[in-house]
């Protein structure tokens, strides 16, 4: 009897395991409806909703905050929207952020994103920028199939219209933590592994150098 039950559980387990479909890294789709939602969001309303966000993420980029938290002033709205939706859908993990995101509507998220985007990028910090970092940002590394960072993130680290974050003036520690999370696979909400592939090709030293490069860029 026990043997039969065990067989049934094993068979059930195998059937269930076979039916598990891998989860997509993000469920956000940049169709016209989503683009319209973000493009037409109200920064004024977003400023009110974003009051609790400022304590950790600042609004001028000059506040003394925890260095491993991202500064969001001037960040692209599409990027913030996607990250918050990914938290909401549990595609990106962070207890506090998932709680915030799950209590917000897509409209509120779009408004907050529009408000952060309306602010200036954080100012430049005093950092030592290496020649190697300049080369990686501007030219990439063909043999490693590494595209230059500037191709997507812009020559001034300003980000791009759809879902590409601004990096200029970002906290060095946050930059490193994020890239290491991509490298280890701990963070995986980048569609088609784009950042995971890049981070896996970079050495820890190169990640540190790139963090300094972008912190030194700032809003000028």
């Amino acid at each position, binding site marked *: 009897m026990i043997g039969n039950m065990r067989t049934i559980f094993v068979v059930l387990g195998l059937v269930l395991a076979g039916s598990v479909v891998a989860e997509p890294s993000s469920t956000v789709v940049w169709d016209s409806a989503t683009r319209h939602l973000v493009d037409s969001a109200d920064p004024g309303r977003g400023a009110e909703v974003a009051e609790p966000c400022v304590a950790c993420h600042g609004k001028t980029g000059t506040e003394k905050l925890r260095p491993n938290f991202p500064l969001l002033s001037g960040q692209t709205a599409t990027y913030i929207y996607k990250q918050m939706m990914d938290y909401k859908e549990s595609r990106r993990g962070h207890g506090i952020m998932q709680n915030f995101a799950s209590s917000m509507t897509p409209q509120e998220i779009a408004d907050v994103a529009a408000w952060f985007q309306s602010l200036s990028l954080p100012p430049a910090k005093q950092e030592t920028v290496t020649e190697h970092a300049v080369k990686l940002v501007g030219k*990439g590394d063909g043999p490693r199939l590494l*595209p230059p960072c*500037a191709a*997507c993130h812009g020559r001034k680290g300003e980000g791009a219209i*759809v879902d590409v974050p601004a990096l200029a003036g970002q906290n060095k520690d946050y930059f490193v933590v994020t890239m290491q999370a991509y490298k280890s696979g701990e963070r995986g909400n980048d569609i*088609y592994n*784009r950042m995971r592939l890049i981070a896996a090709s970079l050495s820890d030293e190169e990640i540190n150098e790139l963090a300094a490069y972008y912190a030194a860029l700032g809003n000028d």
Partner: protein
Amino acid sequence: MHIDATEKKWIYLTFLLTFAGMGVLAAYAVMDNIHPPSNVETVDSAALHLSKEFNEDALGVKREADGSIRVTMVAARYGFFPQKLVVPVDTPVTIRIASADVLHGIHTVQSNFNTMVVPGYVSEVNTTFQKTGVFPMFCNEYCGLGHDFMWARLSVVPKEKFKL
């Protein structure tokens, strides 16, 4: 209508060069087996990563029941996914590729794998790679500031060394 003799010569020369150019293109098309795509199939490019065929886990190289090889790829600014492919030499390969954003193209050096990747459509190429080696693949339709850096790599290996 009077046309000056010198002008006439230039008009003839222009026509001659145009037809000669078309002749060269036609000859290359025949010699290298280049032809327009015969497959017309639509796909939702914005939701490509959520589709059954082009979701992240479905990409890559697979062997079909008849022994042929099927490659599923995505082109997106600025890369091809997967970035690295391994296929066997002298084996029929069907490559299906779609764009997640804008117009791209893909060309593999020393082969006739060369197609436009139009958003909203699946591009399908049937080919057989005849030389072993490692070949670069790159985008040949301008797709944005990172176009020059859209690289991937194809390894064509002997049949006995090919493993999935």
